[in-house]
């Protein structure tokens, strides 16, 4: 079966520094996959390579079997590649609903519509609102994003990504900087993501990773150290050494 996303020999160098080294990676359709690794392992770089924010030095990226290596960022999004950012990257001066509606409109191909087709705009708003209801932030739909607490802003990040109706969703540390009480809500949202979306989560929070992921890839210094089920990863001595620490429990 064609994987939802695949990288073949993905390589990225900044001068003498190699930040992605011959990465072969498969994200199966409907996968719940986590990418972990210590700080500076190249996780966000990997996401930036996949999404087209950074051009690779070598290698190929396939989305649903189609080579997207040469495509610009926007074209990849239109083909179904969505992402969230490690640090909130929102439209802070706009309402929550408008934030999501921008994404929905672009996905629906009406983002450049100058004539304001009444039905199309309403449909985009209603789709966005339904999304907010699903993420339980519909009560804040009319509020400006900058007025929201950080945890809710993280949810808006996810709502925008879902507004793009992605087939592949890359979540870059979705619970980063969120207090424990609010991160439970985020985890709940992530667990209830539609099963037809292949999800790759980059996360430091091991509890979240082991609860969510059915497969885990460990990245160390830009290279894949190991890939396997959570049990295999937790049992691997090298992983314990480089990342999890001796005291970790499976």
């Amino acid at each position, binding site marked *: 079966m064609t994987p939802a996303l695949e990288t073949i020999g993905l390589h990225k160098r900044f001068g003498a520094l190699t930040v992605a080294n011959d990465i072969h990676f498969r994200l199966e359709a409907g996968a719940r996959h986590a990418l972990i690794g210590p700080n500076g392992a190249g996780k966000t770089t990997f996401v930036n390579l996949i999404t087209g924010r950074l051009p690779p030095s070598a290698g190929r990226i396939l989305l649903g079997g189609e080579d997207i290596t040469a495509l610009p960022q926007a074209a990849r999004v239109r083909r179904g590649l969505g992402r969230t950012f490690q640090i909130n*990257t929102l439209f802070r001066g706009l309402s929550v609903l408008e934030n999501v509606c*921008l994404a929905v409109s672009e996905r629906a191909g009406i983002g450049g519509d*100058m004539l304001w087709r009444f039905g199309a705009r309403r449909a985009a*708003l209603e789709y966005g609102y339904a999304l907010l209801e699903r993420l339980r932030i519909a009560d804040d739909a009319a509020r400006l994003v900058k007025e929201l607490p950080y945890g809710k802003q993280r949810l808006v990040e996810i709502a925008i990504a879902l507004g*793009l109706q992605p087939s592949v969703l890359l979540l870059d540390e979705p619970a980063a900087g969120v207090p424990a009480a609010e991160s439970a809500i985020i985890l709940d949202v992530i667990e209830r993501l539609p099963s037809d979306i292949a999800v790759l989560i980059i996360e430091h929070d091991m509890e979240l990773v082991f609860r969510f992921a059915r497969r885990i890839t460990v990245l160390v210094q830009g290279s894949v150290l190991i890939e396997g089920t959570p049990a295999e990863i937790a049992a691997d001595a090298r992983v314990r050494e480089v990342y999890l620490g001796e005291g970790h429990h499976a």
Partner: protein
Amino acid sequence: MSPVDASIRGHRLRAIELLPWLIAIGGYFGFGDYLTLGSQILIMILFALSLDLVLGYAGIVTLGHSAFFGAGAYAAGIYAAYVTGEPLSGLLIAALTAALIGWISGFVILRTQGLALLMLTLAVTALLAEAANKASFITGGADGLQGVDIDPIFGVFRFDLFGRTAYLYCLAVLFLTWLFARRLVHSSFGRSLVGIRENAARMHAIGSPVRRRLLTVYTISAALAGIAGALLAQTTQFVGLTVLGFQRSGEILIMLVFGGIGRLYGAFVGASLYMIAQDQLAKMDPEFWYFWIGLLLVLLVMFARGGILGLIDRLLGR
């Protein structure tokens, strides 16, 4: 009301939006002696409106918008002087000329941002001003373009000495362009411009063709500025090099800041108050009137960020 309905209704015409037009029509009947100033105000509103589209909505910082105003003025003036004095086709020619210059220059300069972009917008104006100066065989150079005779509108409404026709002509054109601009800023395209202003990187990340959108609004804005320039050329029947000056770019920016940027109506409030203040201050204090304008601007920027409309919003607690 659900937020979806509120968002849709927020774009519908509200009664308060008719106020500028009622004032403009009232001005026609009540201030018959000031119709020439009135026409100038309407032209400046249109010019400021065009600037608001790029600066207020799309966040493109420019100090060179007079390039398009001037291009429109010269296009309309040259068209009237050498081809025909028919005014409406003159407006069209001016809009197309300014749009073409906007598209070509935007294609090059919108690759940059910040200070580099600011400098390039100035450079485009300087290039056009020098071109207009050197091409004196067609533009009249420093002496200005003479022989701009404008035919009656629709062959019926002759431009009169009191400026009545000119005023109504400017008002009608402003009304139509306002309708267009209003629809534009409330459209998905307009909202995406606000998205680009707020966070261009995220717009890229949601698949928006950011540069194409910016180029489109820059071209549209240039066309509107060109129409404003054409109105000036047609109603004054003269085009001088000052239409392409830096001062005009600066003044229009001040007018917009006066009124409030990114609000559509900031252009109406700012241009009207600036032009009236200029007129009155120049009468009261012919030597130092610019000082008072400067002082007003300092006070507004310090105490009323968001311009006069921003101040009103704050006073009303919105």
